[in-house]
């Protein structure tokens, strides 16, 4: 008889109505909209059953609250980590988690899973091309016309935020030869008269692109420099500028474990302050870049490594006599940030990932995110125009690099990832077409702060938030806390350990040269003070 009873119960449970009722109940529970048992059901419970039920409900509520807090913290962290939001942020980082945990139904989960499955089928190898923005041309377009139209729209969007009394700026781009580049820039600053009118110059910097191909032409390679100024033509010529150089591999600055690493600009400012050179006398602070092809032997990967090797400080030659020598004698210095001087570091790299993802090609036209600037110079010009920085307050502005990285162009062709150090031909400052790898990571501005710039930065924040949908100071890792190397990387033990690693690699036939291995982790302060 018991068997018949069980079979009857099974039949009732498997009836379509019962299955439907069960599924509904599951959905209600998963969506979080369940209100628990009814009052009648609760009243029918024995006291001990009721106590157990209440305890279980309380535990569930605690768990839900903890999950909501964890979700909010994750969302906050993600928000603070990102430098881009909106469509470009979603493209670069993936969708931003919602600030509040949402009730998720089975249908929602199924819809997300279905979409993810479709995405995998559409794109099995993981390369993601951004979806063109609404209204973007779909067919072939004239690159120049399209780029000009997008730029005009960005200029119009910037207009309401611009400082009322901003100066007219000129970016003069000059070609130099790698070996003589600093002397050439110094000479140009003299011949153009800018060296005699430093109050009209905002900065000079080496354009961080790698121009030309071939490995044997390091000295004669064309290197471009930009001079950002507000001068009209026809200044009387002056003496060439001075440009003392601070080598990043020398220990200029004293830092202990856990202290903040110095910025290149901090050291340059320490020099300028000691020399009594104000922003109206400073021509520029320029990080020195070295771009080299490395590796590429049989079975070895090749790299085109861009790294900061130091900083040049450009100023009229008559100033700062003997100060460099004195500072060298006083090393290591403290080089703390200077009060009253603002050092702004903007994350260009993240924008480049959205609008110029392949360094061996030109930026994408039509732009997948036309509200973002196409070049770091456009971003620099936007900041200068909105904050309204005057040349006499500027120590230096630059488009530059930070951490060493491999600037080779990477393309995804189906299952293949293609890496190349041969860029497309693009016009150089002398009018010649040369192959170019376009690189840069940061836009750095150093200026004397003032109340009008506080207002200007408020405008910039609004522009960043409303137009760029960005927080470009995020992800720049400015002045990170320095860390001592581990026990295995220090002293005799470190040397022995590295030697053993090399022997092991050699025996196993693996390894190759890691171009980043010998680059010190911090500039100007390595090795750290004990």
């Amino acid at each position, binding site marked *: 008889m018991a068997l018949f009873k069980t079979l009857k119960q099974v039949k009732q449970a498997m009836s379509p109505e019962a299955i439907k009722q069960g599924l509904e109940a599951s959905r209600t529970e998963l969506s979080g909209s369940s209100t628990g048992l009814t009052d009648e059901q609760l009243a029918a419970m024995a006291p001990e059953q009721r106590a157990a039920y209440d305890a279980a409900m309380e535990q569930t509520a605690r768990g839900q609250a903890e999950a909501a807090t964890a979700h909010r913290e994750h969302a906050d962290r993600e928000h603070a980590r990102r430098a881009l939001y909106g469509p470009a942020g979603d493209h670069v980082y993936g969708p931003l988690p919602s600030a509040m945990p949402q009730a998720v139904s089975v249908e929602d989960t199924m819809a997300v899973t279905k979409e993810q499955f479709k995405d995998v089928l559409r794109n099995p190898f993981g390369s993601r091309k951004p979806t063109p923005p609404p209204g973007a041309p779909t067919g072939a377009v004239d690159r120049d016309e399209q780029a*000009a139209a997008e730029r005009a729209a960005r200029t119009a969007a910037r207009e309401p935020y611009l400082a009322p009394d901003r100066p007219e700026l000129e*970016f003069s781009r000059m*070609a130099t030869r*790698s070996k*003589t580049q600093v002397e050439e820039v110094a000479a*140009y600053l003299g*011949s153009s008269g800018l060296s005699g009118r430093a109050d009209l110059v905002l900065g000079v910097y080496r354009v961080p692109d790698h121009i030309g191909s071939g490995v*044997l032409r390091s000295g004669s390679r064309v290197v471009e420099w930009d001079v950002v100024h507000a001068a009209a033509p026809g200044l009387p*010529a002056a003496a060439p500028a001075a440009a003392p150089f601070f080598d990043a591999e020398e220990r200029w600055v004293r830092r202990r474990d856990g202290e903040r690493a110095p910025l290149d600009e901090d050291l340059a400012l320490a020099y300028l302050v000691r020399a009594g050179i104000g922003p109206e006398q400073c021509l520029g602070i320029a990080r020195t870049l070295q771009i080299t092809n490395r590796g590429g032997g049989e079975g070895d990967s090749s790299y085109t490594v861009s790294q900061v090797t130091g900083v040049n400080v450009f100023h009229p030659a008559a100033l700062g006599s003997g100060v460099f020598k004195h500072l060298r004698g006083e090393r290591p210095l403290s080089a703390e940030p200077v009060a009253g001087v603002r050092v702004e570091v903007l994350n260009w790299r993240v924008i480049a990932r959205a609008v110029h993802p392949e360094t061996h090609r030109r930026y994408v036209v039509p732009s997948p995110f036309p509200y973002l600037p196409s070049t770091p110079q*456009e971003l620099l010009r936007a900041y200068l125009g909105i904050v309204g920085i005057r040349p006499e307050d500027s120590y230096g502005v630059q488009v530059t690099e930070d951490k060493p990285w491999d600037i080779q162009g990477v393309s995804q062709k189906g299952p293949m990832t293609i890496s190349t150090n041969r860029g497309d031909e693009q016009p150089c400052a002398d009018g010649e077409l040369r192959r170019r790898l376009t690189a840069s990571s940061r836009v750095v501005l150093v200026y004397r702060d003032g109340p009008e710039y506080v207002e200007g930065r408020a405008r910039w924040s609004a522009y960043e938030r409303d137009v760029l949908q960005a927080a470009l100071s995020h992800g720049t890792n400015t002045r990170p806390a320095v860390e001592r190397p581990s026990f295995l990387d220090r002293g005799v033990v470190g040397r022995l350990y590295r030697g053993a690693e090399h022997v092991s690699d050699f025996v196993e036939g693996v390894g190759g040269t890691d171009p980043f291995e010998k680059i010190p982790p911090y500039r100007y302060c390595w090795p750290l003070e004990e």
Partner: protein
Amino acid sequence: MTGDPDVTPIGFAATDAPGALVRRRRNPLWLVLAILFGGAGAAAIAWFILAQLDNAAGREDAVANGRVAALRGAPTPAVRFTGQGDYTVWLELDGVRLSNNRELIVAATNCAAAFERGGSTRFRGARQGASVTIGDRSTVGTFSMPAGAVALTCSQQPFGRRGRQRALTAERTFFVTPGDPGIGWQPWVGLFGGIGLLILAAPAFGRYRTGYLRPR
């Protein structure tokens, strides 16, 4: 081509602009050196190649022709000829396009020479030091024979991975030329010296192009 509207190109302004304070001086000595290095390097390499071509016996100099037996195939008839001194066996590889297969076929070829006056010698492509290749011909090896007649047979023997041995299953033709394909040490010095000079020519030209800055 889209230029960057944010920047104004001004060329090599430091050295070429009308009011430039400095000018780039280029020492013609570096250009002369670059040309000399480049020319001498190219000439030395060309000399090496010509020496090889001159020394290599042509097809028309062959004193005997034969066939190399295929791997696991029927033996081919021995080639007989009369002479004295050094002789080189050349394998004809026309129709074999992949360089890997060419090297495999040369390495797998084994030859045996039996002399009329007694004695014999064996040699194989895999043990000849350096194989000389001219066009579609590669050497299998060189042997010395006493005056008189010789009977020479060649066959392909298993060599390398089994999966690649399909290339050895066809008969090949060979011929024998008098002399040794080797050249003296001087052309080799020319080859390596020439490569070194070509490498030096590049930085010399770079040095010329870079020049140095001088006040106007």
